């Protein structure tokens, strides 16, 4: 068969046998006869029938002589030197092809021409294929030719025809002029991203391909690699990374972005990990909406927050957006705020970034806990190695029945009130040893002063344990329990005050009343006599969708709610928690997986339930629970409680279901 490209370059004449033949007179015809017609790759000798299809009126089976008559500079070079075309009026124009490459089923050709208009056809074999030619600026060409402007000197050709793998050529002509066919174009494997940027049609196809894959997947990444950097963000797309923080490895990045709902937009780190904004908890940013009120999507939740596990203090984070014109970096941030590796400090920073109710659970699981959990684990690993300093005041009971353990983590001034109450209860003093664990090293001096004063004033023996590190309540309690000798451990909050003697006997009676008692608590009251704790039940409020512990009788007047001894309850507050030493040890002590707050107590109660033991509340044992000014504010406490509730549910939801069905 005849290649279309050759056909475009020569006139082909076909003669009958015996007529004088004109030999090919140029090298193109030579090549055709010598190589391609006879032997070369896929080329074959034409029979007459085939020639008839391309020639004129040849009879079958007659030998023919083919005479090639060149009519133009045949098969012009265009990739190593520029091709000069001549117009009908004698004007000339230059054409050059910079790059030819096949991209995703298309062939893309980039070049330049000084001609304002150019007729171009893509030729493979003998077939001509439609193409799309776009023009773009080429300042370099303009400079080289001394032209005033580089406007539209460049061209980009994209053809998505079903081409074979064979070579292609171009037929190029100035308007209303004879075309020139080029030699087969030399292709290269890849285009640079800059070259891709000159091919809008190709980018559109690649953008669509990108959209069809999950952000971060391998095919998505492959498609992304083929998109160049876009020069400008599309209209209405804005974004900003307001900050990032972390405490070591991994961090949280936050900011805002406005974009169409279906935009492909993501955060990426230097290690090419991708975090689509669509998967992130978003939050309302009224300020942003107001600033861009003219945008159709100004009402979207512009705020975003993401946990990026591999970023570090010097990492670069980019907010990127894919468009049909390429990829644009909307915002970039280098480095992050390094926080102390203290879960509470980091939690406080996290909680400063508010999230609406709806995505709170999503955020907790995708952002908060992923950042906090490793910190908690790391901190606990350090804390268990601590060797507390014990300061003993007086002579403690040698064989205490109950070790009373108080994590001193709030107002140290309350210590005096609590100690006065203990000191005035001979029954308490007879059976207990008393431990205070100072959670905040800054409180140590003051706490020791009060302990010394009370010991000297009242003759009360006590031990104060401290470490150089800040302890959470669970760690503090676990630390003290290692030094406790009692058969029972009574964990009291530093806010809990007994007002009358014999309350401890009442709690201990819970264990004798019920052989399956695992933990015994008391009714806790405000100073005014309203119930603050009377045992927990579990409930699933529709708003949260997970189990939460509900205080029984909370805020009701004590004297309006009957109290009996040792009643079974789903769980008790850890503010007053009496447990057998052996059982406590077998459960591994207080869980340290939670943020300080409601969590560890419920966890321990569920662990008891799993062992077939139950929680009891002695409603006739009444202790005052003073309120504590939240060290980090009420909002912090509320958010920490929410995080703890989620974690609690992740661990215990099935057990609670089972317990409430009565399986246990």
């Amino acid at each position, binding site marked *: 068969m005849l290649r279309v490209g050759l056909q475009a370059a020569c006139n082909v004449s076909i003669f009958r046998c015996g007529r004088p033949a004109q030999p090919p007179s140029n090298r193109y015809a030579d090549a055709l006869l010598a190589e391609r017609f006879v032997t070369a790759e896929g080329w074959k000798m034409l029979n007459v029938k085939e020639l008839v299809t391309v020639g004129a009126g040849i009879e079958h089976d007659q030998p023919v002589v083919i005479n090639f008559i060149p009519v133009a500079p045949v098969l012009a070079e265009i990739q190593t030197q520029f091709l000069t075309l001549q117009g009908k009026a004698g004007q000339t124009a230059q054409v050059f092809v910079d790059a030819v490459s096949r991209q995703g089923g298309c062939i893309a050709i980039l070049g330049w021409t000084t001609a304002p208009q150019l007729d171009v056809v893509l030729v493979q074999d003998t077939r001509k294929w439609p193409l799309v030619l776009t023009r773009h600026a080429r300042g370099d060409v303009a400079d080289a030719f001394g032209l005033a402007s580089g406007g539209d000197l460049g061209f980009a050709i994209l053809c998505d025809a079903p081409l074979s793998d064979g070579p292609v050529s171009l037929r190029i002509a100035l308007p209303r002029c004879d075309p020139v066919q080029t030699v087969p174009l030399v292709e290269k494997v890849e285009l640079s991203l800059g070259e891709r940027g000159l091919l809008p049609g190709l980018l559109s196809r690649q953008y669509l391909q990108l959209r069809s894959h999950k952000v971060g997947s391998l095919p998505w990444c492959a498609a992304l690699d083929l998109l160049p950097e876009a020069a400008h963000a599309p209209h209405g797309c804005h974004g900003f990374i307001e900050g990032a923080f972390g405490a070591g490895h991994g961090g949280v990045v936050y900011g805002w972005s406005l974009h169409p709902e279906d935009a492909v937009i993501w955060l990426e780190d230097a290690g090419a990990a991708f975090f689509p904004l669509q998967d992130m908890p978003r939050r309302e940013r009224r300020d942003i909406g107001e600033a861009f009120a003219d945008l159709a999507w100004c009402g979207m939740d512009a705020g975003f927050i993401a946990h990026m596990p591999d970023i570090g203090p010097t990492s670069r984070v980019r907010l990127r957006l894919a468009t049909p014109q390429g990829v644009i970096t909307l915002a970039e941030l280098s480095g992050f705020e390094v926080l102390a590796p203290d879960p509470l400090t980091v939690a406080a920073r996290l909680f400063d970034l508010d999230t609406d109710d709806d995505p709170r659970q999503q955020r907790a699981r995708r952002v908060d806990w992923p950042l906090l959990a490793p910190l908690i684990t790391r901190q606990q690993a350090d804390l268990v190695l601590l060797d507390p300093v014990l300061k003993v005041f007086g002579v403690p009971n040698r064989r205490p029945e109950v070790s009373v353990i108080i994590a001193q983590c709030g107002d140290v001034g309350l210590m005096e*009130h609590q100690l006065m109450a203990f000191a005035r209860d001979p029954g308490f003093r007879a059976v207990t040893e008393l431990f205070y664990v100072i959670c905040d090293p800054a409180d140590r001096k003051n706490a020791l002063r009060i302990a010394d004063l009370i010991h000297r004033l009242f*003759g009360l023996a006590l031990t104060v344990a401290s470490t150089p590190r800040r302890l959470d309540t669970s760690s503090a309690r676990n630390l003290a329990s290692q030094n406790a000798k009692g058969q029972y451990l009574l964990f009291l909050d530093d806010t809990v005050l007994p007002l009358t003697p014999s309350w401890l006997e009442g709690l201990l009676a819970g264990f004798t009343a019920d052989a399956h008692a695992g933990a015994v608590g008391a009714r806790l009251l405000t100073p005014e006599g309203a119930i603050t704790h009377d045992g927990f039940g579990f409930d699933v409020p529709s708003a949260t969708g997970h189990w939460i512990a509900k205080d029984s009788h909370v805020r009701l007047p004590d004297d309006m709610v009957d109290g009996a001894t040792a009643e079974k309850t789903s769980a008790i507050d850890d503010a007053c928690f009496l447990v057998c030493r052996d059982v406590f040890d077998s459960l591994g002590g207080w869980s340290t997986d939670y943020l300080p707050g409601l969590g560890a107590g419920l966890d321990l109660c569920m662990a008891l339930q799993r062992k077939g033991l139950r929680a009891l509340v002695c409603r006739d044992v009444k202790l005052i629970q003073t309120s504590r000014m939240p060290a980090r504010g009420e909002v912090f406490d509320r958010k920490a409680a929410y995080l703890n509730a989620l974690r609690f549910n992740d661990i215990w939801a099935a057990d609670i279901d089972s317990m409430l069905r009565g399986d246990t």
Partner: protein
Amino acid sequence: MNHRILTISHAHPDFSLGGGEIAAYNLHKAYQAHPDVEQAFFLARHGTAEPTTGTISIRRRNEFLWDQSLGDAFTGRAAKPEGTLEDFANLLRALKPTIVHAHHYWPMGLEYFQVIRTHFPAIKLVLTLHEYLAVCFNNGQMVKPISNRLCFRETPADCQRCFPQMTTQDFWLRKHRYQSYFSVIDHFVAPSEFLRLRYIDWGVAPEKIVMIENGQTSALPLTPRPLAEGHTRNRFGFFGQINPYKGVSLLLQGLAMLKKSERRAIVLEIHGANLEGQSAEFQQLIAELRAPLEKEGCLQWIGPYEPFQMASRMAGVDWVVIPSIWWENSPMVIQEAFALGRPLVGSDIGGMAEKITDGVDGVHVPVGNARAWGDALLRLSRATTEWDRLRAGISPPLDHAGCAAAHLKLADATLQGKAAG
């Protein structure tokens, strides 16, 4: 019984002339003179250094000064606990008292009660209450700050409204602390029934608190002020501190409300001290009220006096007025006036209403009512026969010896009860 009694006072009359410290010191002297008392000692708080050292020094034989103060006025915490735990305890070891009779608790801190109870459990501990400091953080006045309205009940929530910068819990804890330390006191003494009831309302067990009036120096009643022909009992005397709670401004306002012709028949003498220690606003108010009345001659601003001058100054007046706008406890001036034979005109609340019997030994005037005070002074200034009747109605107050005897009787009963128990 041979008691060894240590009287503890919040101040020493050598340096301060408040009613409480005078009562305490006089009682100490009466203890010294009592045959059942082997030895009596007097320990007075006296701040001599800044910061507080907590140390105890000798004032004179059997009298000591304690350099102690409050580290925290709200909770009643001692500034120098070491002074309580060491110096005070050492003094007790040395003096070996069988009874500690404390007057006041405020400036020494509450901890000294517990030192006595823990380390000297045999000592009988009696506390005489001279005001309402445990009950009310507003200087123990039971009067609302700023408005000076009377306070009729104490609860943490009510107190918090008076001090918005504090929390309800702060007040609950304050009370908890006071009550905890008060729980080791064997007996409370209230110089007035009114105060006794207030402390019972606050939480002191009724069986632990008795009323014993402060003792007075025995004296013969003064003769009536000689009257010239046609003159009346129109001279009124105010004796005491001049501060916003004592009602002097009210008295002056009452006078100012009278017609000038009515004022001509009245003479009011002010024998008062400490005006210079009051706020500038209060001093200004007094100055503005005082000037025109002094010019007219119905007001005579006499000024401070020493205790020994009391009789001579009281001799020059017919009536003693006590127009306080706070409850008072058992104001010394009432007993002093009675001892010297002068009827009283007092506000109709609290310790004044209790100690002055309206129509018997004095007259009640509606508290805080300036016009009523003006009218009362005018009416009494014209009624000589009523003065005679009221003077005749005065009963001699309890003297120091009687007061000491009453206290010892209480102590003996308590000790016997303890021994029996």
